[in-house]
């Protein structure tokens, strides 16, 4: 039996489309950190795992729909983004967008958990699409074009959202680099 763990995501996705559960499990193992991280940044850490589970479930049931164009991870993130939007609509809630009048959190010595909370709070003040655009481009390193495809929006709109979201985050979080603190 071939060692699936060395196969590329796209080959594993093709195997998953044929019903290979072992191949799909490797895809879950490889991509869960990124998918959960993306959803934690976009939806908040309290909803991230449920949404990620839903995302992988959809990816399994619709495995045949992955045409092999672009990266599998991008396809997963697109499902994750759609899952988040559907969840938000289903709950009838919308996290209030940042109005520009909120105070930037204090920049003092903090633990990792506190820093995470501050980052999450700052992200929550952005519009959902701005937040997702910033996370995809700045955090996950996707190109603007890839991010536009994942979020299903025009390239120009995506660039505007990244620029606006980044500026708002810098305003909220300050420009200190405390990642090594």
């Amino acid at each position: 039996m071939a060692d699936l763990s060395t196969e590329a995501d796209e080959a594993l996705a093709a195997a998953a489309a044929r019903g290979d559960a072992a191949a799909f499990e490797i895809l879950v193992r490889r991509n869960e950190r990124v998918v959960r991280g993306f959803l934690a940044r976009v939806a908040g850490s309290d909803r991230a795992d449920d949404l990620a589970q839903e995302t992988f479930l959809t990816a399994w049931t619709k495995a045949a729909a992955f045409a092999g164009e672009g990266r599998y991870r991008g396809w997963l993130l697109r499902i994750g983004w759609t899952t988040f939007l559907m969840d938000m609509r289903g709950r009838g809630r919308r996290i209030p967008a940042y109005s520009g009048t909120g105070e930037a959190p204090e920049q003092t010595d903090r633990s990792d958990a506190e820093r995470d909370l501050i980052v999450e709070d700052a992200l929550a003040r952005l519009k959902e699409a701005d937040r997702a655009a910033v996370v995809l481009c700045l955090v996950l390193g996707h190109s603007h074009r890839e991010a536009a495809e994942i979020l299903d929006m025009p390239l120009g709109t995506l660039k505007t959202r990244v620029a606006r979201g980044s500026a708002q985050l810098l305003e909220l979080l300050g420009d200190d680099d405390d990642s090594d603190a």
Partner: protein
Amino acid sequence: MTPTPDQLARLARRLALPEREPDEGFVARVRLARDADALAREAARARREQLLVEIGGGGALLFAAHQLAQVGEQAAALLAPLATGLGGLALFGLAAAFMVSTLAGEREELA
């Protein structure tokens, strides 16, 4: 304000996802969810099949009832002219004779 590349790089470091090993707990959670989903789909498929069988059974019963009604109509069509020809009294006598013969048959069986 347009952020500079340096500012964006610093922001990216602050937002970065922590590096870690794959979370086997989450992998198992997805596996369980997948299994549960497969079971739910199987149950839904079985329900659909059962519904189809029931609908088929109902249809067959309706068809049988229709056929019986047709046979009844044919029998009635055969008997109606006979009844008209014989008259009420003769029909009564025929029914009475039928009852008597039936009762006699039952008596013989009991004996």
